[in-house]
């Protein structure tokens, strides 16, 4: 197995799928000549030419709309959002068009596209550039929402997302781009809608995805030092949600903490907490506790940014809370 960064793993996934299927193409801001704002599309323009790696003007609605229209004609576009913060400008294309045409047409249309790019907070880029919108997209029937936390998952899930015939919102994370991990050398893909236990433990279940898996993993180390063993379940795909492994884990540990980078009110963690209380009511020894971002816009100052985000110590405190310790 090779050790790759998530950036390299994503790049490999796209390069391999583009070589495999001439219907796959990429468009977005700075994806070509600039080699990608975050270098995820590095080298692809040279390999595949400008019609398959298309630099666009700064026009998110056009980027998404072109992906939708091209997908309707049978192509498999990958629309890169420089960051998902800007996807709000394209929300009408995703929510009203990509997600709904199949339904409104009585099943005549399919929209096999991927919208991908970094989501969540980077470092000190303040309120308009640090948002976690997975809950918004996961709310919409017709969309698939994927959030990988490791290089291996990123590559395997992106390959599935590209080959899948539904519109997939594939949310990466800037902080994770440089994270390294083992990636199989051979051809593989990971099905969408498949949770994975990232760490086994018997005392408390932590459900976390994307960068929150890092917070949870750090918390697990702090807690292990105190003799508390947590189990981390990463759903990897929020819609469709593979919730059974979460329930299995909670039935074993009898406790559950959900960690997310988004805001608390109506956040996706509330959906998980709802399902857990309904399916595991008799197993729970404590209420489900959520660790989220503070319910305010992201501040700039390093000190405030730290206070805003979920942190390993906050996750550890939540685990102790459900353990009544």
């Amino acid at each position, binding site marked *: 197995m090779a050790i790759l960064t998530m950036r390299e793993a994503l790049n490999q996934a796209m390069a391999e799928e583009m070589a495999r299927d001439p219907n796959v*193409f990429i468009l977005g801001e700075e994806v070509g000549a600039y080699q990608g704002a975050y270098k995820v599309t590095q080298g692809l323009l040279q390999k595949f030419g400008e*019609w*398959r790696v*298309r630099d*666009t*003007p700064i*026009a998110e*609605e*056009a980027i*998404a*709309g*072109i*992906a*939708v*229209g*091209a*997908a*309707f*004609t*049978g*192509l498999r*576009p990958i629309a890169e959002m420089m960051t998902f913060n800007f996807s709000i400008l394209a929300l*009408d*294309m995703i929510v*009203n*068009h990509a997600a709904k*045409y*199949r*339904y*409104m*047409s*009585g*099943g*005549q*249309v*399919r929209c*096999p596209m991927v919208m991908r790019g970094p989501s969540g907070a980077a470092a000190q880029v303040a309120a308009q550039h640090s948002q976690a919108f997975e809950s918004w997209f996961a709310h919409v*029937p*017709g969309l*698939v929402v994927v959030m990988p936390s490791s290089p291996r998952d990123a590559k395997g899930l992106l390959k*599935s*997302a590209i*080959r*899948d*015939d*539904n519109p997939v919102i594939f949310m990466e994370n800037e902080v994770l781009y440089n994270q390294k991990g083992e990636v199989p050398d051979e051809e593989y*893909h990971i*099905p*969408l*809608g*498949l*949770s994975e236990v990232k760490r086994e433990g018997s005392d408390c279940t932590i459900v976390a995805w994307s960068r929150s898996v890092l917070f949870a993993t750090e918390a697990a180390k702090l807690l292990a030092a105190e003799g508390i063993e947590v189990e981390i379940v990463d759903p990897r795909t929020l819609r*469709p*949600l*593979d*919730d*059974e492994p979460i329930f299995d884990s909670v039935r074993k540990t009898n406790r559950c903490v959900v960690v997310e980078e988004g805001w608390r009110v109506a956040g996706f963690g509330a959906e998980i907490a709802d399902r857990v209380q309904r399916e595991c009511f008799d197993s729970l020894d404590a209420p489900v506790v959520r660790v989220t971002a503070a319910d305010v816009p992201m501040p700039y100052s390093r000190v405030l940014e730290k206070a805003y985000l979920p942190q390993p110590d906050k996750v550890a405190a939540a685990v102790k809370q459900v353990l009544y310790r």
Partner: protein
Amino acid sequence: MNREEAFELYRQMALIRRFEERCAQLYVEGKIGGFLHLYIGQEAVAVGAIGLLRPDDYFITSYRDHGYALARGTDPRPLMAELCGKLGGISRGKGGSMHFYDVPRGNFGGDGIVGGHLPIAAGMGYGIRLRGTDQVVLCFFGDGAINEGAFHEALNVSALWGLPVVYIIENNRYGMGTSLDRASSVKDLYQRGSAYGITRRDVNGMDLVEVRNVVGEAIDRARQDKRPTLLEIETYRYRGHSMSDPGKYRTKDEVEQMMKHDPIFQFGKRLIEQERFTQADLDALDKEILLQVDEAVQFSEQSPWPGVATLYEDVYVRSPYINMKAAERDPAWQATMREDRVPEEFPAPAKVGS
């Protein structure tokens, strides 16, 4: 245009008119619900433009969409059934008036978001360029759409990359109840194309022949030169924005003046003056069309209501890349299928009157 072609175009316009007059009745009777936006007065635009397409070309339209489907030859029966929310509807009763799709005929539907389908038209054009075929896309929208950001984003990239799309503004002078004078800084809407270096034209949309001539040139430009065009086709809707609109923002006199230029009447008059057809021919055709509309209504009435189980169908496509065991805990995933549906295969009621 030969004699048969001319007759066929006249027939299509008359069918749209009679079909929609009947829609208005059914709406009043409560058989059609929701929003009903009638195209009456604008028929020459859809018929003139769509008649020029090849079978493999695409088009996408605004929500005032009945005319385009009929002009493309979609059977009026599933269209009427769609309006009444029946399972035999062109979109299985899930779209209604604003969402007529007929993908095998290249009709990617009526879009309910003003201007929302313009970037999608550009994407269909991009797909054509990437594949290297010589298809074209027609994109129809109202004068209200030109003030949306989507209009500008779509036009810019279409010109920038050479996308084979003909953008057609159907200027009926009102975006719902707001007149153009109160909505657009530029009164000649086709001038908006100059910002993007797009070839543009102003067209009299009450004249079928003029529509055909100008759209034909634009289609050639798209097909051969891979260049987009922006056309402003000046037309008029006789009815309100939707059935709930009493139209108090314009005078009765204005409507009557415009009705004097009625596209169907004018074209019929021309056919008679050229001695290609007699008034009796056109009257006989009208009777046939009224029967056809009756049949569509009958079909619709006999078409079954959609079963509640269909509520969950057509959200997703069944996929080998999804962990279906988990996904199927959601009924929308349970109801998925691998294929797309074809309108002809939608359930039809037993044949009427035979």
